[in-house]
């Protein structure tokens, strides 16, 4: 049976409930990345990103031993509780070919797209989370959700391509309101029912979509691409409404807390430390209740302006201005800032691992990609940018490994991620980073 919105509409206000018995949309049942737990409960596999600026200190984070049971280094120490549930990638290369190395941009853009950016602050294609969401997020309320832990909605490295990035929720309260405010219904609740308003709004949206042909007809190629994004956004809003009319096919063992209060959200480290796990928890709950299957969290922009109160320079400027301690062989203050990033990542994994699902946790039914913009921020180096993958993607990814990249392109990680998420592609990336070589040894 095809879902006929306009005909169903008529019945809405007459109190008819016949339309409530609409079967699940085909696309909802078709969603990939779903596992069936021992309980018979359907558990989707989720994807997350965690972005941290300014990399780590190579001599302090890269394990000496590759493979399983690698040595825990000083800077990986905060992640030790999750060592068995994650993989770390060192020595991966970003090859910019004939393009400039845009400082605090080329590295993260290459990891997110497999392509060295040709323009500063722009992506040359859709980012990996969006590609994955195209496949796994069908039927969820939000295709992807973004949050920025230092309070700037621009701190988001998810994009449909070009200069636009998806705006991030800049506070825990705004994130909460988007996820669990008006329009949210707990799928586990007994009195779940579709909201008749949603159907009316769908009719309005379909007329906006109808404007496409007229609006596009006299546009040049650049504007056409922009309006393609606009109409894609309209389409996503329609899909979101379709999803809101269906009870999510999951049983979440979670309680949605009350709304968080107003709080300072800015670059001061103590605030970032409060906000990051709070946002991670809300994101994890959103995934557990199938409001979304893709959650992107950034703790700052690439040239991170996070600062420890009392430090007049802050993180970014310190990476450039702090001298290398000749005895230690590295920048000591920068090394401390690096560890804060790893502690924040650990706080995110902790929230995901705290939600029980089937015979494991939300983290076990996820794949989280953590990455940065530089390997050695002092000189804007991009070779050896740290990348971590956490969670085993519902059993599709083997974990506990240190992969010593040996100069292989970063796109190999992105390709491996997509394969683990069930995306059917052979290769990924462009130019010298084009690759067909996933880390098959990690794929179960």
């Amino acid at each position, binding site marked *: 049976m095809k879902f006929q919105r306009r005909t169903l509409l008529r019945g809405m206000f007459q109190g008819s409930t016949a339309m409530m018995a609409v079967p699940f949309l085909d696309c909802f049942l078709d969603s990939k990345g779903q596992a069936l737990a021992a309980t018979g409960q359907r558990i989707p596999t989720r994807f997350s990103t965690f972005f941290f600026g300014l990399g780590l200190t190579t001599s302090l984070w890269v394990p000496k031993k590759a493979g399983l049971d690698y040595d825990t280094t000083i800077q990986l120490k905060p992640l030790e509780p999750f060592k068995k549930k994650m993989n770390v990638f060192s020595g991966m290369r970003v090859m910019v070919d004939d393009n400039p190395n845009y400082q605090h941009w080329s590295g993260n853009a290459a990891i997110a797209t497999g392509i060295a950016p040709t323009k500063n602050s722009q992506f040359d294609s859709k980012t990996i989370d969006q590609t994955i969401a195209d496949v796994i997020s069908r039927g969820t309320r939000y295709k992807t959700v973004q949050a920025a832990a230092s309070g700037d909605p621009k701190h988001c490295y998810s994009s449909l391509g070009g200069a636009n990035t998806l705006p991030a929720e800049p506070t825990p309260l705004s994130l909460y309101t988007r996820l669990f405010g008006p329009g949210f219904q707990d799928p586990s609740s007994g009195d779940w029912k579709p909201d008749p308003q949603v159907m009316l*709004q769908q009719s309005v949206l379909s007329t906006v979509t109808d*404007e496409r042909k007229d609006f596009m007809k006299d546009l040049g190629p650049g504007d056409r691409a*922009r309006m393609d994004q606009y109409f894609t956004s309209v389409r996503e809003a329609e899909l979101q409404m379709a999803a809101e009319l269906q009870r999510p096919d999951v049983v979440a063992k979670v309680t949605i807390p009350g709304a968080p209060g107003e709080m300072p959200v800015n670059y001061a480290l103590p605030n970032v430390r409060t906000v990051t796990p709070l946002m991670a928890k809300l994101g994890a709950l959103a995934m557990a209740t199938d409001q979304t299957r893709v959650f992107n969290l950034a703790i700052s922009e690439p040239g991170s302006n996070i*600062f420890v109160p009392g430090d007049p320079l802050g993180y970014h400027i310190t990476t450039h201005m*702090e001298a290398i301690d000749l005895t230690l062989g590295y920048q000591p203050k920068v090394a401390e800032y690096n560890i804060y990033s790893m502690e924040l990542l650990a706080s995110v994994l902790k929230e995901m691992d705290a939600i029980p699902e089937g015979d494991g946790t939300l983290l076990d039914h996820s794949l989280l990609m953590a990455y940065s913009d530089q390997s050695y921020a002092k000189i804007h180096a991009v070779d050896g940018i740290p990348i971590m993958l956490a969670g085993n993607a519902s059993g599709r990814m083997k974990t506990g490994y240190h992969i010593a990249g040996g100069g292989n392109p970063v796109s190999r990680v992105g390709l491996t991620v997509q394969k683990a998420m069930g995306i059917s592609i052979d290769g990924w990336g462009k130019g010298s980073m084009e690759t067909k070589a996933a880390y098959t040894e990690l794929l179960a």
Partner: protein
Amino acid sequence: MRNKVLLAVAWFLISTTCGAVPVLAATSDPMTGLRRLSEQEYRNSIADIFGKDIAVQGMFEPQIRMNGLIATSTSVLSVTPAGFESFSKMADGIAIQVTDEKHRGKLVSCTPKSAKAPDDACAAEFFGRYGLMLFRRPLTAGELKMRVTLARDMTKSSGDFYAGLRYGLAQLLQSPNFLFRKERAIPAGGKALTLEPYSRASRLSYLMWATTPDSELLRAAQTGELATAAGLDKQVERLLASPRLEAGMRAFFTDMLELDTFDTVSKDALIYPKWGGAMPSSAKEETLRTVINLTLRENGDLRDMMTTRKTFINRSMAALYDVDFTFDNDWMPYEFAKDSGRSGIVTQVSMLSMFSHPGQSSPTKRGVALMDIFLCEPTPTPPANVDFSAINDTTGPLKTVRERLMAHATTPTCASCHNHSDPIGLSLEGFDTIGGRRLTENGQSIDLSATLQGKKFQDGTGLGQYLHDNPKFPACVAKKLYAYAKGMDTDDVEPSVTKAAYKAFSDSGFRLRTLIRGLVESPEFFNAQASTVEASAGQTKVAASP
């Protein structure tokens, strides 16, 4: 003359069966520009069309600055899924208010035959009226019919005429024709193209008043008056004479002076406990008040924004500047003492604190920003592998930022850029990262001398005078205003297109109204090339970091 005839033909109005609503004949003029409405433009448009008591609630997509201007990015950006979701909710929120019992008497001009049944004539009147204001041109017959049909369907299923209007209006507010300003051109002889009258009305209105064209401008577009020199001049004079010009120029100066940066500036409360609360928004407001007062209310010499000691302060700015606040209202005019070291907006808290580190001033950041903002001279990005560590070593013999910066800047690869931008910043070292005055740093008195492009000067006052006397400054304002109006990259503004307007500006003693008039009445202002705008605006320039 031929062009005027063409205009009249292309934009004649036809009547339809929908009632006495003017609608536009569908045309296929070359499209030349497509600009996303900014948050301010959206809010102002809604307030002007429906009244200030209609609340606009929701988050707007963040704006990005490209080569110095946010306006440039409006020709490049689209709407993301999260952004559209928000626009969609905002649209419904506005439509609910406009059609509710409290507002419908005033905002719905016709009364339906029955409040419970469709009334196509009344709906057409409603959508025709608001469609014209929201799309900044009359709807085509097809566009009008689509909304009337939607409203009819919605009324039928809800049994409520006003619910039909609500959904139809929400539809108009989510349409790309509202969220984007589509600029259309028509042939102007040979290969030349020029904006058709409604696009002209929009460009003038969003530049000068930062809002949607009012009924008088739309009327002048409809009659074709805006395509004639006399008609254009009449409208430009009207817009210039209105107090609403302040809103337009506030929007321009907020963009040009990068005052939006304040929304995300963090200062270290441990080092500067004074900072916080209303201080960032107050500092921004101080600068806008200073500039608007000088250029519009007093009709003064625009260059004086670099030298004036006149400003406006509120309680929190008074605390920062260490002056008494004795006034009943929120803001009071204030004039700094001669020996205060303050000189124009470059020595105001806004400009000093925006371009600094959380807990330390940065001559380089200040220099790079001010060179770009006021002289249109961007500084190249530093090489990727520069060693900046000498700048930060306070344990060595070099105590002040100046000494350490000089040591670093003697490296040949660094020298050319630092010589370009540092002098401006060094002359401002008499102000700390939140704009407070200081005379020493780490126990040593601060040298505030600078030499820039062959001119020697001393401290913020000297810098103000240097910028005031530098012809590149007013020329840069002219160039940025032109780029802002057209949504183009500042670098793509050819000197020839602002030349006549600049001369008039200069001859008038640098009166802002003269500059605006000169730019919008120049032959180039409405000239267009088909769909090339986005090709040049794609490259973001990032200034040097530390």
